[in-house]
């Protein structure tokens, strides 16, 4: 590896901070709780991080185009609720159940995207509204209570263990991450997404259909929130309103810790996954140590601020 490669690695402050943070937390938690550093615990971390990872990867895609979505938690609950209601009351086959629920999630993405690209309403405001609307719909269709997911085949697909001890949600996470990484780095759509977020006017002048790019990313984001709902619903074997509580902050923090910018044009699938892993270690470590969940939030917020500060200092060329 030449000097240029080494320089690029050293300039990649996000990766250095994330890896350093992971190593530091592993040392810290394993010092206080020996069970932390075991294969079994590693498996648990991977399984519990899968929902967060899928949500964060969808949000990362939107951030790259310069947009944002805060309705993803409601969409997660919406898709899980549709599955639960269909499996409990209509007993359709699994494929049809998944399709209908996914279409519901995609529909929210389309509506969000249309309001943003056609009416040019800021995406934060559009998705703030849709979060409330979809969340309200979930409350009504679930009648304010949990609904069982009675479809065993569905549960096996999204949280079964057909190959050894690792749940299928981990494979879904890896598969989705690979597909998105491939889309963003190996296909022209990825370049168009980065260009749309980095300099929308320039992208348009170069003939890129920026509105269509954004709309597609909203659709993909909705779809991924739907899949996250399938995974979370399968893990809980039920759907209930507000089941996504606790995911909003880390799902938004992870892509930003991984290099995405609220201004658009930046973002990374591998680094988002690293950030999700770091945040999941915190959740796992706090739980193993028997600490209250509030400590998890404090730690997450602290690490987020540290990571952002280091990045900002680097860009101000102080470091």
């Amino acid at each position, binding site marked *: 590896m030449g000097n240029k490669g080494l320089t690029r690695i050293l300039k990649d402050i996000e990766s250095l901070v994330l890896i350093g943070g992971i190593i530091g937390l592993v040392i810290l938690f394993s010092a206080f709780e020996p069970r932390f550093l075991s294969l079994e615990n590693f498996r648990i971390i991977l399984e519990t991080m899968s929902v967060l990872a899928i949500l964060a990867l969808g949000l990362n895609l939107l951030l790259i185009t310069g947009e944002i979505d805060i309705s993803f938690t409601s969409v997660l609950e919406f898709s899980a609720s549709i599955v639960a209601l269909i499996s409990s009351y209509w007993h359709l086959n699994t494929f049809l159940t998944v399709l209908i629920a996914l279409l519901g999630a995609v529909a929210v993405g389309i509506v969000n995207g249309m309001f943003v690209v056609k009416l040019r309403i800021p995406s934060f405001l559009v998705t703030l509204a849709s979060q409330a609307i979809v969340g309200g719909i979930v409350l009504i269709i679930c009648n304010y209570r949990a609904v069982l997911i009675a479809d065993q085949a569905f549960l096996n697909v999204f949280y079964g263990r057909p190959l050894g001890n690792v749940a299928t949600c981990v494979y879904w996470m890896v598969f989705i991450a690979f597909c998105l990484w491939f889309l963003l780095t*190996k296909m022209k759509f990825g*370049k168009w997404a980065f260009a749309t977020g980095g300099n929308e006017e320039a992208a348009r*002048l170069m*003939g890129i259909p920026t509105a269509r790019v954004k709309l597609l990313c909203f659709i993909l984001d909705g779809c991924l929130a739907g899949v996250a709902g399938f995974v979370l619903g399968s893990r809980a074997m039920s759907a209930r309103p507000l089941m996504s509580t606790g995911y909003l902050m880390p799902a938004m923090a992870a892509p930003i810790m991984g290099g995405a910018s609220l201004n658009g044009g930046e973002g990374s699938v591998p680094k988002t996954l690293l950030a999700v892993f770091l945040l999941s270690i915190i959740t796992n470590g706090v739980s193993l140590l028997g600490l209250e969940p509030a400590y998890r939030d404090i730690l997450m917020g602290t690490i987020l601020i540290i990571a952002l500060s280091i990045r900002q200092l680097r860009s101000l060329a102080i470091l």
Partner: protein
Amino acid sequence: MKGERKMSEFVMECKNITKSYGHVQALKNITFGLRENEVLGIVGDNGAGKSTLIKIIRGAIEPTSGEIFLRGERVIFHSPRDAMNHGIQCVYQDLALVNKLSVIDNFFLGREIEKDVLGFLPVLNEMAMGEGVLLALREMGYEEIDIEEKISNLSGGQRQAVAIARAVFTEPEPDIVLMDEPTSALSEKGKQKVFQFVEFLKQKHSVILVSHDLNAALQVCDRIIILKLGEIVFESNVHDGLSVQQLISLM
């Protein structure tokens, strides 16, 4: 409307181009020609109609009336893509580069080279794109630019080189390159670099240069057109007797 290709001394002709926005006439019966390997300067004060004229030539807007001919053949542009397909490229005032993308990504933005993987999946052909950029930059004398480097890390001159290379080294190869205010906000050294670029361009292309900078226009153009309130008020070859004061008096 395609007629028989006529022999024309002009690479491009604009005939009676008019553009109205309601009651406001931004351009009135603009008629001029652009010759082979010529640098034509279009100058004028704010509101003269320069930007409107350039937008029409590059296909961003359509004229209210009038015609454009390329090598004697009438053409109609419904979009910038149409103009590009007819060999008209533009180097924009702000260069239209994406700072967070690399040189290679910017160079091929919107026209990426792809190859099929597994017989159906179109993926970026990074090797072909890399070779294309290196060749282009070498021909412009900028082989030292790291094509993986982000545009934000390049100097002003290097960025301009990338923007010009992107406009020039493309398929189809452009007959005409439009340069919109290429010397604005540049130092004297930067301006000299632009003049070198223009000299490089006119070897193989015709250039239309839109500028407020009258000194720059006199230095680099072969012919100058002055627009005032949407009309051509002056047209002349650049010669020793033509001065900035003279141009100002006509604007």
